[in-house]
């Protein structure tokens, strides 16, 4: 499925060029989106490799079987010019990991990691028409991670988060949808969303 996303994005880009430009008064300047990020394989996996050539990893308890939800987000954007928009997003997802004791050969706990990304965005539209946008952008901000494990201590880890929107396509007038290819440490590869323009 993911292999189809890049060709779909490129097809959308090609089709956008055939559409006439919109007049400035047709362009709404604010957007509010609800989006879902698709996790990248491997990025979120906290599993500590069982075949690690290190006795510590082979005999000390370790986290494995990490599962994670999609990255859910609420985003707001405002166009300062016809081509440049800035905004912010609040993103959340949950990771769960088994805490496995290799000598006892059993799971001795489960860790729940609640992760919030607070990011500011800047995006530049190569094309901005009434119904279509083609853009790239960057985002940066904070990663807030709270790990809890039943029966043991909790830990809070703040950090720096960033992402690069390599290419995004947005379609729709009042209720637009978008699809983006994303890189960075927000642990997703693609994101899509539906929103409202006003």
């Amino acid at each position: 499925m993911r292999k189809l996303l890049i060709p779909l994005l490129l097809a959308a880009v090609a089709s956008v060029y055939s559409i006439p430009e919109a007049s400035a008064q047709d362009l709404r300047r604010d957007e509010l989106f609800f989006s879902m990020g698709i996790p990248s394989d491997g990025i979120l996996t906290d599993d500590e490799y069982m075949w690690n050539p290190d006795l510590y990893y082979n005999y000390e308890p370790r986290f494995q079987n990490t599962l994670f939800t999609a990255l859910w987000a609420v985003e707001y954007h405002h166009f300062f010019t016809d081509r440049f928009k800035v905004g912010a997003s609040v993103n959340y997802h949950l990771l769960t990991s088994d805490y496995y004791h290799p000598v006892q050969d059993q799971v001795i706990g489960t860790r729940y990691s609640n992760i919030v990304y607070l990011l500011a965005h800047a995006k530049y539209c190569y094309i901005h028409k009434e119904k279509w946008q083609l853009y790239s952008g960057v985002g940066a901000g904070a990663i807030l991670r709270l790990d809890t494990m039943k029966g043991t201590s909790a830990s809070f880890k703040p950090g720096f988060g960033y992402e690069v929107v390599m290419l995004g396509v947005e379609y729709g007038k009042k209720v637009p949808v978008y699809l983006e290819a994303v890189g960075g440490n927000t642990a997703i590869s693609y994101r899509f969303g539906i929103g409202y323009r006003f």
Partner: protein
Amino acid sequence: MLTVLASCSKGMFSGSEEYTTRPGEGYMMILSQKLLPDYLLALESALVYDGYGYPSNADYQTGDVSLSTQGAVWTVNGKKAVKGMRITCIDNGVWKLERDGEYFFYDSYYNYRSQENDGYPTQCTVIATQLESVNSAGHYNWKVTFTGSRTEREGYACTFKSEPDLTYTSTADLSQSWSGCDGSATMYITKNGDKVEFIRMDYFGTSTRYFGGM
């Protein structure tokens, strides 16, 4: 198959006589599939070089003596995974391989990463007896007797040895590895001097079985 445990009980260690899954068996597999093959590849590479003459160069310090001469000692100089290994001819077709230094399990003899690898102090002595030739590229089957130890972080350490030996066999199309291993080996693992586990590994060509205990 049930293997008698008597030969691998050592002091405070005791355990099952049944084959079972052990936490450190993957680690022990690395010893047999990485460390020992690296030693043998270094030996085979040296013997190929011996066939072309033996002036010292960047890869070997030869003492200008053929490695087939009893008592000859070569040292691996090059940026190999086993840099510093001493190869001594102790009999016709028998060599002693000795090394005491950092060894990085992610390396291989043919794929050394860098001098800055974060390896662990590893000491190993191997007696390698040359068996039949596998191909014209200098690849052989080998009988291997070894003993060694390794010290790692957080107080972990291990000792390992063959009991009594391993036989590495290959097919002609494999020039940088061996396709089969027969024999047995034992590894004892401690943390800050306290027992953690012992593992005995029995090889049956292409399959491996383990047993052990605390």
